[in-house]
């Protein structure tokens, strides 16, 4: 089994499953903050996925996208915190 196959048939499915599991938390909530951290985790998983995908497709270009995600994803969390604090 080559690395690519391994990534395709093991790693990516694991990541996909993780994403969906996290997503269930996002749907379930119950509070907005739960959704926000689920969102944060989804993005983090996304970073992982993109990394794996770039290994898999041999294009390191995609890591740039991961870099952007890593740098600014938390702005969303900050913004939601800002919102919630203003509201309470």
């Amino acid at each position, binding site marked *: 089994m080559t690395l690519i196959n391994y990534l395709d048939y093991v790693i*990516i499915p694991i990541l996909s499953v993780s994403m*969906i599991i996290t997503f269930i938390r996002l*749907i379930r909530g119950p509070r907005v903050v739960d959704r926000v951290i689920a969102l944060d985790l*989804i993005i983090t998983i996304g970073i992982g996925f993109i990394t794996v995908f770039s290994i898999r497709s041999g294009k390191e270009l995609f890591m740039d996208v991961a870099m952007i995600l890593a740098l600014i994803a938390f702005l*969303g969390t900050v*913004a939601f915190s800002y*919102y919630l604090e203003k509201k309470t």
Partner: protein
Amino acid sequence: MLISVLLGLFVACLLVPFGHFFRDRKSLLLALVPGVIFLYFIQKLPAISSGQVLFESKNWVPALGVNLGFRLDGLSLLFVLLISGIGTLVFIYASSYLKGHRYLDKFFGYLLLFMSAMLGLVLSNNVLLLFIFWELTSISSFFLIGFNNEQEDSRRSALTALSITGLGGLILMAGLVWMGAIAGSFSFGEILNHASAIKGSKFYPYILALFLFGAFTKSAQYPFHFWLPGAMKAPTPVSAYLHSATMVKAGIFIMARFTPVLGGTEMWKWTLMIVGGFTMLYASILSLTKRDLKGILAYSTISALGILTFLLGIGTSHAIIAACVFILVHALYKAPLFLVTGIIDHETGTRDITKLSGLGKVLGPVALAGGLAGLSSAGLPFTFGFIGKDLIYETTLHLESKWGWYLTGLAILTNVGLVGAGLLAGFKPFMGRVREELRGVHMPSPLMWVPPLLLALLCVLFGWNPEWAGANLAEPAVKGILQKYVAVELKVWHGFNTIVILSLATLGIGVILFLLNPARLKSTPLVSFLESLRPGVVMGRMFVYFKRFATAYTDYFHDGYLRSYIIKMILFAEALLIYEIYRGGPFTIDFSKFSSIHVYDVAIIAVLLGALYKTLKTSSRLTAVVCLSVIGYAICVLFVVYSAPDLAMTQFTIDTLTVVLFVLVLYRLPPFLKFRSRKVMLRDAIISVVFGMLLSIICLRVLVEPARYNISDFYAKYAYTLGKGRNVVNVILVDFRGFDTMFEIVVLSVASIGVYSLLKLRLKSSEKE
């Protein structure tokens, strides 16, 4: 001819800036304009009466076949002389009548405009040109009727008149355009040449209907006549000019002009005879029941117009001769009657005949004018009116069919009414004892009483000596209508024949009617029946219903609710798409063309759709925002997988910024409103789902469409070698399609300025615009 038409327009335009020079007596100078025109055309009289037709043409809009083409034949000349001749007198009269009026200069401006329009109308040799002038008469008369614009009545009458004649005009235009389309030209000569083609066309009935609708509205035929009495709100000189001599005759003129083109058919004949016949009788009876002098004159004018239509409908050469003479006759007596009425109104302040009597003692020359005109109107022998009436009877009696006698009866009845009306207007105010309150009445300036007297004297002059008018005015006019020569020999006395008996009988009955006080007729069943036929009121009511319908319609479609608009638009879109998809027929999908589905595909789509579902369902705004950003991030990952890193980056940053935006803005807003009506939600769901399905189907169809031409190969080839960049998307953005980017950043700038101003700019309530 062009110059004569333009002269009035030019002077009218000059009056806009230089009007203040003409606000006093100097306004009399303006009478020079019609005067000069009159003199110019009178010198053409010999040529025309010898049978010549003068043409003049100047290119204007050759593409449409519209040239400034003029044609001076007998018919035009007759009208031109009336327009300019009576015009001169009316101008003189008006400068005194409206002395000191603040809008005197504008009055003359409108009047000049009107006069030029009339001249243009009767002279034009091109149907579109004719129509242009036709509309100008409507507009200028709108301004003239509404001249006393501070009075609501006046404004309303002007609006009614414009509405009726304007509608007629537009419909006439359609008729003329169709005629032109069949003839292949808008030149009157060409149309005349294609007369048989037009008459033979299967569109003839429609063209005729459109044409006559226009003509009838303008010439105040029943049931469109009601605007004319209303138009009496205009200052009297206007009434005298527009509503006796000229504008209303435009309708008659155009019917006469087009007689060779459209006339002669049964349809033409019967329509004109029925409409004209009914109008003449109806109006003549009603004219007797009016107490307002102008009302009497207005209805008798309508009646006269009915007679003219009737005669044109009969269409025999006798009839045409009668019509031509009667045009002249009517103008010559009706104008002075109006002018006299104006004097009475001006000096006494009333036009109610029951309040007027004995004015003959204080207003001698005026009474003379009124009396003579009244007699001509009544058709006393040795007045021109007698000859007119004579010819009418001659026409009806000469008809070969059994209808002749019926029509003669109709004519007699009408004429009896007109005799009464003429006497009521021309005699009644001057007879009897002077009323106490009228004793202080002064003679007006000669500028006011000389013009009507002149015209009245003409009535007598032509009455004594009709040969000249017959040969020089009527005969060429008849030729102009019929396009063939018919001798017109008018005589004072034909000998004692049936016609004379009928004429005298008419006169006698009329006089008796006058003496019996025709106001009493008002209570007769016939009159109350006729009075109950009020097309004006009916049309008014129809208009109200029309407006009500318009309101309902507008309220239905434009109901103020955004979602109702969207629904209508989407339903429309769906209808079109469904029709087109249905028309496109079935299609097969080649599944092998599609790429396989990976686990991550499923995960991405599952997350996307799940988040979408939550967005739709949640009642928390913030959850919706969270879910929306999940959708965005899922799309971002999709872009990564399917080779669009630039897109993914942009999508992600923009999505994050959108979240920030939402968060900054939304925190004060209340939770979502819940208007849960299952029915509405179901309806919306169905509409939206159908739309989504249509889009899916379309996508599928596009996907099965075989390989496309690939323009990106060019980009791929030159992105590095010429564009000097490796990232083709970026090279497209800043180079190949740099213009898109250039102006998309404009969009961004404008949006930010918009946000800035929206939040910062607060106008004070006192600030406008």
